[in-house]
């Protein structure tokens, strides 16, 4: 009897293992476990087994059933997966076709550089202030210690709207406006467009500047050096060297021109730095007491520093752009590089 069951089990295993398709497995399931299946028949005839053997016989029969079921299930799963894979294979796509992407819009390189610089100074506690682009002669020149007929006015070619209204030639025009409306301590940056009417073909009539200034009791020229060093190191890397040279601006005194070690050749000398190893990047100085007087501050009480830079200049050095005119021509191929 027992042998009978074992041989059924072995035969079933042999047949299942030989099966080559889902169909054959399904047929084998019917053959052994179906209503009229071989094993089902044996289970049905369990009643005719003598009482004393029935329990043991039943257990073995059940074991064989579970074994065959499991084995069938395993093969069924294998054949199912294979069939599905065959279908999926027919659905193959060409993955080299370009993706369907949402076009990426870029921000203008001037905006990107300006944002970076603004972020640095706001992280140092500076506020962003603005002033009008069409400005009174007073704020653009006079309040900055450049009275009418001052020779320093020759340093900037000015677009005039009327005799006392100009297109601002620098963002320094924001200084006295802010001072008049606030009390120190002040930490301010003023980014924006500025205008010069230079007929030279390599010059552009509009560009961007960022003015920064700080006013408090006890601000020193060494503080100016410190703040600008932090800034330059954040933009161009901590290896960049700074050089402060005496210069002249009517609204600062002492005034300085700040050079950085050439970012292209690292100081060895190249075209960009005209073989000097240095690049002019910032103008700065201690705020001239006359400017404080114009703003109604007591120059004996407060000191401060101011600095200004051309944003396109920083962008050109950062990205290696060699012609400033490219900035506002707005060629897509230029804009999409940044």
């Amino acid at each position: 009897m027992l042998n009978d069951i074992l041989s059924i089990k072995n035969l079933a295993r042999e047949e299942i293992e030989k099966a080559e398709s889902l169909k054959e497995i399904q047929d084998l399931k019917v053959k052994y476990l179906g209503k009229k299946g071989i094993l089902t028949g044996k289970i049905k005839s369990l009643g005719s087994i003598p009482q004393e053997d029935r329990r043991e016989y039943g257990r073995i029969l059940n074991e064989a059933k579970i074994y065959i079921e499991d084995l069938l299930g395993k093969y069924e799963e294998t054949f199912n997966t294979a069939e599905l894979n065959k279908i999926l294979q027919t659905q193959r796509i060409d993955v080299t076709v370009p993706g369907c992407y949402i076009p990426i819009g870029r921000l203008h390189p001037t905006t990107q550089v300006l944002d970076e610089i603004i972020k640095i100074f706001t992280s140092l506690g500076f506020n962003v202030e603005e002033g009008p682009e069409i400005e009174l002669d007073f704020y653009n020149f006079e309040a900055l210690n450049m009275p009418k007929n001052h020779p320093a006015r020759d340093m900037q070619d000015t677009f005039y709207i009327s005799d006392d209204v100009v297109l601002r030639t620098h963002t320094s025009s924001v200084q006295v406006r802010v001072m008049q409306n606030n009390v120190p301590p002040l930490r301010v940056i003023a980014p924006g467009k500025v205008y010069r009417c230079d007929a030279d073909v390599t010059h552009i009539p509009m560009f961007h500047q960022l003015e920064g200034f700080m006013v408090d009791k006890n601000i020193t020229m060494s503080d100016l050096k410190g703040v600008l060093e932090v800034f330059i190191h954040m933009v161009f890397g901590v290896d960049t060297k700074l050089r402060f040279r005496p210069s002249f601006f009517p609204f600062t005194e002492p005034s300085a021109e700040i050079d950085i070690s050439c970012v292209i050749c690292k100081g060895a000398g190249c075209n960009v730095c005209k073989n000097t190893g240095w690049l002019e990047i910032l103008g700065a100085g201690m705020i001239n007491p006359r400017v404080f007087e114009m703003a109604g501050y007591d120059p004996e009480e407060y000191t401060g520093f101011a600095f200004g830079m051309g944003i396109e200049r920083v962008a050109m050095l950062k990205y290696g752009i060699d012609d400033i005119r490219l900035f506002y021509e707005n060629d897509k191929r230029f804009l999409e590089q940044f």
Partner: protein
Amino acid sequence: MKASFNWLKEFVDFKLSPEELAHALTMSGFEVEGMEEIEGDAILDINVTPNRPDCLSIIGIAREISAILGIPLNIKPVEIREQEGRGPEVEVKDPHLCQRYASRLIHGVKVAPSPEWLSKRLESHGVKAICNVVDVTNYVLMEMGQPLHAFDLDNLAGGKIIVKTAGTEKSFRTLDNEDRNLKEDMLLIWDAEKPVALAGIMGGLNTEVSSETVNVLLESAYFNPASIRPTAKGVNLTTESSYRFARGVDINNIAKALDRAVQLIAEIAGGRISQLTDIYPEPYVPLQVPVIFKKINSLLGIQIEETVVQNILSSLDLSIKREGDVLLVTPPSFRQDIQRDIDIIEEIARLYGYDKIPVTLPNIKMRPAPVNKRQDLIRAIKNSMSRSGLTEVINYSFFNPDTLDKLNVPFDDKRRNLILVKNPLKKEEAAMRTTLLPSLLNNVRLNLNRGEKALRFFEVSKVFLPSEDKLPYEAIQLAAIYNKDMSASLYGDKHDGFYDLKGAIENLLRDLIITNYRFEQDSTSVEPYMHPGKSCSVTVGGEPIGSIGTIHPRILELFDITGNLNMFEIYNVEKLLEHISFKKTFISLPKFPYVERDVAIIVSKDISAEQAQAEILNIDSDIIESVSLFDIYTGKPIPENKKSLAFSIRYRMVDKTLTDEEVDSLHSVIVERLKNTLNAEMRS
């Protein structure tokens, strides 16, 4: 200013190479911008800042070198032999415009070409050699910084000089043979009858030294910078002389320079020298500037010793007297830029060396950073635009006013109220922009001409409109333009570019959490340059804030642009600030599921999607959660003049699950309503 290396060495005995000298000058505030080797000499091109007119000469630069290097300055004394009688008769009628006038006569000169050393030196500094007498005046100008002028004495009526303003004189011919228009208050040099020079700027043709000249009157004067500058500007003439007078020459150097020139003329061209006439009614009084010693260190952030300060100041010819904590400093007459303590502190810093100033960070109090809403808004707009696939352009703030004609802008439109630039270099810079559109059209044209396609640009910039105030109103405008490339559409993106830009605006408004906006179409175009059927205004809270549409094909032709172009403008983005709800409030997520039903209707083409949607939403029921359009169709089998609209309606109750019966009964109400109010047919 150009300065010869060898010439400088005649006055200071330094041991530097030209490169080393250039570096030393650059690091003390005299940037050497170029250097040129000429026959064993080097010509340095030095940038002399406007505050240092005393360095617009070889001796001036040499004096600076002597201070920087601590080497003495050697200037040989001038020796002349007066041979012939009294100096010229001079009358200064406007002494506040001419504070000093010195002159001498030289009789019997032989005008001839200059000796080689002289003409070569002039030419190496970019000055053309003319004849010995004139060349000497130019030589002394370069050497000592004092402009001089030589008159042909025999052409001076009455042999005398009168210094007075132009008055009623209208025109004067300068020696470059140009007629200069005069203004009443311009200072002239006259003889007994007529003007003979534009004081301090250029001599007259009538008294020019020529090859026939035998007797010369030589002028060395101090003209008020406040008079020279407007005059030079007024006649539009800048000369080596006017440049120096406008910045201020050394009033104590006037007679010395005259004698130096007279000495050289006598040496080179011969002649007998008269006595000196020197009209100098109010001699120079030196200034005494007090400097609190402590302030030097506290402003610069250094610890400098007093002896170092004293050495620096005396090397610059500044004399010092100590009174308690205060240094009383007297600058020499050639340093008129030094007037206040700060000017002296700057000189100390300059010669002490900026590189020796330490690097520190300011000691400051913490405080909250104020919010700049305008700046935040601009940044949010730019980010939103770029996320919608638009690339930022920045254009010049000017435009050519003729563009408004091309855009068909009516004459009473406020964009016609232009702010004009008084001195533009070209027509494109003649007016400040009142709209960004023309610039964007130019950007599209330039890129199309260069073969670029699929152009999607935006700009956020100011436009300028007249106002009641002294300064115009500066509005921040946003404009975008889209030249859709219909040919290249791999994924079937064939819809009108209008909707791409509309999507960008809707994205922006959603980014800013502005919900009360509408796109309102009229029977005519919203802007004169837009397609009448494909344009509308954008309103927020019922107020028009901008427009969107397709550019009229006629306008495109005028701008030489082919293809289809859509654009939008937000006239003044600051208006959006009023509508932004900065507060974000959480709404609980629904707990019960929704049921969705679609409805497809056939309606007349005039009925807008918004109208149909409103009909559904207007039904008085709180279980309609949302209605969204998912299909528009025209063409067979839909009759002409009709279109099919398909909406998906989502129903939900907040407190229980809806039954099919509840949904079905409301849905049939909706269907009935659409039939009745829109004359809609149901599409099966």
